[in-house]
């Protein structure tokens, strides 16, 4: 559905999107994840033909975003960041205007708008002025606009931004449901959203593609390293060097907690679980331990990890 190849966008003295390539298959729900300023909106604006790439290409449903811009736009239902609407129009009127603008014939207009209103539960407010609507309703009007022509692809830029937890949950359900009929590409900087709704995550940071995988795989990949927490009493210096000698340990952090107790955070790379080896070591050396635990990695860890490495490498990039 979406094919992105070496897409780049350069603003004055600033590379907003840097050589990004990825694909989205028909029927997928893909989360486009990255911190603020990562280049999500810029990428999306190129896909929706609002901006032209500095270099690279992209196509939607086989049509090139530059050469077949109108055909590309016909397949997309787009909800821009912050959901701009015309405040002085009524909901129904707005949706009719948008549907007509997108080329819906006047015959199918009423049915189409009615269906979108139904899907997004806008029945109660359809005759209200948009200016008087709450944030949650405005967001749904934006979504209704995006899907009114029943496009194959929905592109949503931070769709749950500014909603309260209750509204976010409702919106998520709605998106999951829509995923049965549309391919969905949504951007967000909120992790739980991706974990719960998306089949795949594309992570971008500082304009560069960092990862593209299922949330489960990203977590698993992170776990292969994994963190262990060990808390023991006494001999912290000796314990430290002993732990460091274990094969596969990449770093150890120590932290004095209470009188005599020391807490170690052990990170390993590329080796499976080290907890057994640490346990054996503790028995052998007769360490008095009160905790040996594996710290379960979350998608958040995976995300922070991917993004953190980048900040460390910032100097080299210039």
């Amino acid at each position, binding site marked *: 559905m979406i094919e992105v190849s070496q897409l780049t966008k*350069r*603003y*004055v003295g600033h590379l907003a999107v840097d050589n990004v390539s990825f694909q989205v298959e028909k029927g997928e729900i893909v989360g486009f994840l990255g911190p603020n300023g990562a280049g999500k909106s810029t990428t999306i*604006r190129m896909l*929706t*033909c*609002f*901006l*032209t790439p*500095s270099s690279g290409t992209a196509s939607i449903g086989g049509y090139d975003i530059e050469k077949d811009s*109108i*055909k590309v*736009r*016909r397949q*997309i239902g*787009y909800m*821009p960041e*912050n959901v*701009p*609407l*015309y*405040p*002085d*129009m009524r909901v129904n009127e707005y949706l009719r*205007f*948008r549907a007509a*603008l*997108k*080329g819906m014939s006047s015959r199918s207009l009423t049915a189409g708008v009615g269906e979108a209103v139904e899907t997004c539960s806008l029945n109660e407010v359809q005759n209200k002025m948009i200016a008087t609507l709450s944030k949650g309703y405005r967001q749904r009007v934006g979504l209704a*606009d995006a899907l009114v022509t029943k496009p194959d692809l929905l592109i949503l830029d931070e769709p749950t931004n500014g909603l309260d937890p209750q509204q976010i949950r409702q919106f998520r359900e709605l998106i999951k449901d829509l995923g049965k009929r549309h391919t969905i590409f949504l951007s967000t900087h909120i992790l739980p959203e991706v974990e719960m709704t998306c089949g795949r995550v594309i992570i971008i940071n500082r304009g560069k593609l960092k990862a593209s995988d299922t949330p489960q795989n990203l977590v698993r990949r992170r776990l292969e390293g994994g963190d262990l927490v060990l808390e023991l009493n006494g001999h912290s210096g000796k314990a430290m060097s002993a732990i460091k000698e274990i094969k596969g340990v990449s770093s150890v952090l120590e932290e004095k907690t209470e009188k005599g107790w020391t807490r170690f955070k052990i990170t390993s790379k590329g080796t499976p679980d080290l907890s057994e080896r640490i346990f054996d070591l503790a028995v052998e050396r007769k360490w008095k331990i009160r905790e040996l635990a594996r710290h379960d990695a979350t998608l958040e860890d995976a995300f922070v990890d991917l993004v953190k490495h980048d900040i460390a490498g910032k100097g080299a990039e210039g």
Partner: protein
Amino acid sequence: MKELRSFFLSPFAFIVMALFAFINAWLFVSTVNAMRVATLPYSLVYSVFASGWFWMGFLFIFPVITMRLFAEEKKTGTFEGLMTAPVRTSEVLIGKYSAAVTVYLAMLVPLFLFFPIFKMVTEQEGAFNNGSLWGSMIALVLVGFFNLAIGTLASAITANQLIAAMLTFVGVMLHYFFGFFMGFTTLPNSKWAAGMSYLSTVEHMQLLSQGLIDSRPFIYYLSFSVFILAITYHIIESRKWRI
């Protein structure tokens, strides 16, 4: 269509339209009065349209009509939704410009009703001739096309309505005053002066409201309107390449 609706629903627009109609009505009455006490050298139509008062009101309506066209959409962000809909930029531009033209024509209607009504009420045939009325009407429409194009351009340049309005006003004024500069120039009969006066609103208007219709103003106003709209088109498109 959306433009039309939102324009007529805005209270500000009503105030401006009412004011415009009022100024014109007042102007009309005072000109008629003036004609009663002294014989003016030109017809009633010409006297009304040559008055500075008329022009003051007239030049103000263009910024008001056009300032919102693109500037407001850019400010609120709806511009993005508009330009990512499967519609060509040229269609958006023509749609907006036509809406502005429609509003403008609607505002002119009351103005031109004064004259026939006056004729009917007073049964005075000599006050003006139909030629000069038609001439003035055509002139106002042509000048309107041009000034609305300037306003559309200004609105596409900025996201600030006020700046758009000011740019439009300056543009419209400059164009209007070209004619007056000619009065001061030391070489009144040079080719340069002739060229300049060709560019002036006043010049064309005076000829037309005297009932003298020729093709030059048509070519002039229509071609310049198209030219300015073409520039506007490229400015709207240039956002894509924004670096």
